[in-house]
């Protein structure tokens, strides 16, 4: 997967209760939950561990 522009964003009602990742993967903007059973998040973790991807933290 080609992962670009990965950033954590806050979400949840009423406000900002948990994080998810917003990223462009293979050209499409996706909103990815922090669930290791999710294949996109699994790949993000692999690329972060390999040092080929960094996720911009919440400002």
């Amino acid at each position, binding site marked *: *997967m*080609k992962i670009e522009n990965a950033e954590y*964003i806050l*979400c*949840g*009602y*009423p*406000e900002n209760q948990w994080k*998810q990742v*917003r990223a462009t993967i*293979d050209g*499409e*903007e*996706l*909103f*990815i*939950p922090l*669930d*290791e*059973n*999710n*294949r*996109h*998040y699994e790949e993000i973790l692999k690329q972060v561990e390999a040092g080929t991807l960094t996720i911009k933290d919440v400002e």
Partner: protein
Amino acid sequence: MTRSRVSKQNYLHSELASVPNQGRRNLLHNGDFKIDQRRQYNTYTIVAGSQFVADRWNFYGDTNAVNTFTATTRVFGAQDGEGDLPPGFSKGLKVAVTGTSGSDIPAGSEALFRQKIEGFDTDRLAYGTSSAKDLTVSFYVKSSLTGNFGLAAEYEEVTTNQKYHMQKSYTINSANTWERKTVTIPGNTTNVPKYKARTGVGLILTFDWGQGATYSSAVTSSWQTTYSNGLTGGVKLLNNNGATWYITGIQAEAGNTMTDFEFRSHAEELKICQNYFILMYYSATAHNAGYNNSYGNGRVFSMRATPTASLDPASTKHAYPGNVQNSSNMVTEVNAEGAIARSGLGSGFGSVRWVFQGNSSYQYFDARTLLDADL
């Protein structure tokens, strides 16, 4: 009118034991391609990377492989005037190779078609025990090409994460003619699967569309640790400009007996596929409850894992009033506080909503939304 009668009312256990298990035996989903939320029965042009060409069915090709060919896929059927299908089938997958660069897919590249079967569903094979069962794969195939093609199985072992591979082949004898093929994959009595009784990949069934030589091997009769999902010397579909390949009725069942394809109702197959992928039209009122954002109401789902949410790239997201379109502040989020958020247990629940961040004035959203929890 006469009614037929059961000629025998008492059966010996040994007689019943010889009857193949006829219920819910296909480990694969959407084997007859009746469901295509992914591509909506439209022609799809293959690109580099991993992509679903129909519900549950995935193509993977690396960049160097995909640079050597152009090809399309499409779930076709009688409704398209393409009614040439095996009896009883209404849909199938068509692959058309529309161009080649003049060079074959490189040795170190991959191009394959596959379905990843969930661990829950492969438990019945009892891999890693003395009772491990064979897996019989059957399917209808038609191609402009003839010869030996590759089909392989792969799974991951629990303690070492070692991947085990079994390479098989099938032969297309006559060009442009539907043939039913069967391949039996021996059980593995030694190596326990990683995802036993869990979600995660229990087994991958792979059709070789263009695996390079490095990732190909001869047919094997035992499980191998060397990575290979292609057939050495086999026909590599995607290297052949103008070639076509059609398939339907793919079934994988425990045991070494091929049985008739297990037809499921359209509604049942759709429900199964929606455990992995949902295309929904999200249309909901929004509120702000005194906060900075506008929150759309949640839409409830149940899926294999917490899904990735996104806007259908073929559509536009709207916020009202004002009909603001495709604002980067309009994001989607999944709330999964049930089982799927906690573990690999699967079969949990959650909800998805759209939110307009930093603006509390919106009252209504609509957006075609994709939820993807496939393996």
